[in-house]
């Protein structure tokens, strides 16, 4: 070998070449981002390309562009969230938008106001973008039907978490230079995971093969009809994947009978050093966070060379900037 391989640089170049190839000018027609299921492959590629342009903003001396100056973004979170909310806040600030928080505990919903009334009131204050997280699947759709401003889904029940799906796909493309043909495993509590569903829709549209891995209680049959492959024996397939995305086990569910004990789950489905030795040498390890170290993956794996966990967080900013910019641009162009 005459040349030291540099996978990151190679991937960047491949992406850049793909981006500069002559194609029809893409148009983003959506004022809202509610699901990845409803997007076309070109829509998804446009977000990824736009996010790539936004990536630079975070690395320069003035970490801000004036694209959304004078616009107002509201974080409407009906579920606790630290990183997603912070990421949206920072993304809005880097676009020079003003951002306010409207959290469930301080709002009138505790006084019985309906979601429809709440968002109509928010809109009446002259808001441009509503970022919403809600425990009920479909809540962002209900909001979008009732307001004229942009609505961005930051997670609705077990349904979708489109910006997380996009940032995961962005991170994979950044590391591998492509999506088509890759084998991606999504491991763990798939049935309760909106991250798994958004990843599935996005990755399939771009030509990847997605396998859900976990016990039958967490990876039920129904996902086959959505295009996923299913596997209940991690060890038998671990050497096949280019990407392994570990989902968080929610401790509150452990008391129920979906699996016998944390130890057993961890022994069968945890990403340990030992399992990593049997994975592909260039496997990319991901986790949407927060990580239960020692359960979904060992601390060594989370902090290891192949982990993209912190890169995912960084990329989340660029992806959310891209989504807010594209939706607002579509809204202002009628």
């Amino acid at each position, binding site marked *: 070998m005459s040349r030291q391989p540099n996978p990151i640089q190679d991937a960047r170049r491949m992406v*850049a070449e793909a981006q500069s190839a*002559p194609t029809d*000018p*893409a*148009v*983003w*027609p959506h004022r809202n981002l509610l699901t990845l299921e409803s997007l076309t492959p070109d829509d998804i590629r*446009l977000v990824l*390309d*736009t996010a*790539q*342009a*936004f990536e*630079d*903003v975070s690395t*320069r*001396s*003035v970490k*801000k*562009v*004036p*694209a*959304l100056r004078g616009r107002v973004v509201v974080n409407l979170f009906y579920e606790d969230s630290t990183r997603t909310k912070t990421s949206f806040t920072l993304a809005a600030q880097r*676009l020079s938008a003003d951002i306010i928080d409207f959290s469930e505990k301080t709002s009138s919903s505790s006084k019985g106001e309906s979601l429809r009334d709440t968002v109509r009131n928010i809109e009446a204050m002259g808001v441009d973008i509503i970022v919403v997280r809600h425990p009920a699947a479909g809540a962002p759709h209900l909001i979008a039907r009732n307001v004229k401003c942009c609505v961005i889904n930051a997670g609705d029940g077990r349904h979708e978490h489109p910006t997380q799906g996009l940032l995961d796909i962005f991170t994979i493309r950044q590391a591998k230079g492509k999506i088509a043909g890759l084998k991606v495993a999504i491991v763990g509590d798939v049935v309760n995971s909106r991250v798994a569903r958004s990843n599935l829709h996005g990755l399939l549209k771009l030509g990847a093969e997605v396998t859900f891995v976990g016990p039958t209680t967490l990876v039920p049959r129904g996902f086959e009809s959505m295009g996923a492959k299913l596997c209940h024996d991690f060890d038998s397939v671990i050497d096949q994947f280019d990407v392994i995305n570990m989902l968080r086990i929610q401790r509150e569910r452990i008391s129920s009978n979906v699996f016998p004990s944390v130890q057993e789950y961890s022994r069968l489905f945890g990403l340990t050093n030992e399992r990593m030795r049997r994975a592909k040498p260039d496997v990319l390890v991901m986790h949407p966070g927060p990580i239960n170290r020692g359960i979904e993956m060992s601390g060594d794996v989370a902090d290891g060379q192949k982990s993209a966990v912190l890169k995912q967080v960084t990329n989340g900013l660029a992806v959310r900037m*891209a989504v807010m*910019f594209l939706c*607002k*641009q*579509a809204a*202002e*162009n*009628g």
Partner: protein
Amino acid sequence: MTVLLDDTGIRLTLQRLAQEIAAAIPPACPVAVVGIRRRGDELARRLIPLLEAQGVHDVAYGSLDITLYRDDLAEIGPAAIVRTTEIDFDVAGHFLILVDDVLNTGRSIRAALDAIMDLGRPKAIRLAVLVDRGGRELPIQADFVGVRTESDHEHVRVSLREAGGEDRVDVDA
């Protein structure tokens, strides 16, 4: 449709622009050409060997995307694609030549100046354009102008071989 510049015209015009720019560069000052995407970046790239021929060496190159600095989201249209700004040198201290294909309202240049200022503090910024078609809405003028045309109600179209076409500048009535 009339041809304002053919490929020879563009070549000679860029040559003359390079001469004028070279004569204006202060001594012992690092020089950079930065083109506004699309087309300005390609013209900036072509200026580098022409400046070399004038004895100006080590010219840094960058391309600038100004989509995020436009003053009206609706004005840029739904098809505006945000491209990467690629300026991998520190603009601070440089004598920076900003390059664009057509100068019209001046709003792109305003956006480009803001974008450059966010990257650092150049020693000076000068503006070079292939075509000045008048119609200014802001107090912005070019320092180096290829050709001038007063075509307020006409469309000036620049095509360059880098984009797969041929080198020419047309004016559509």
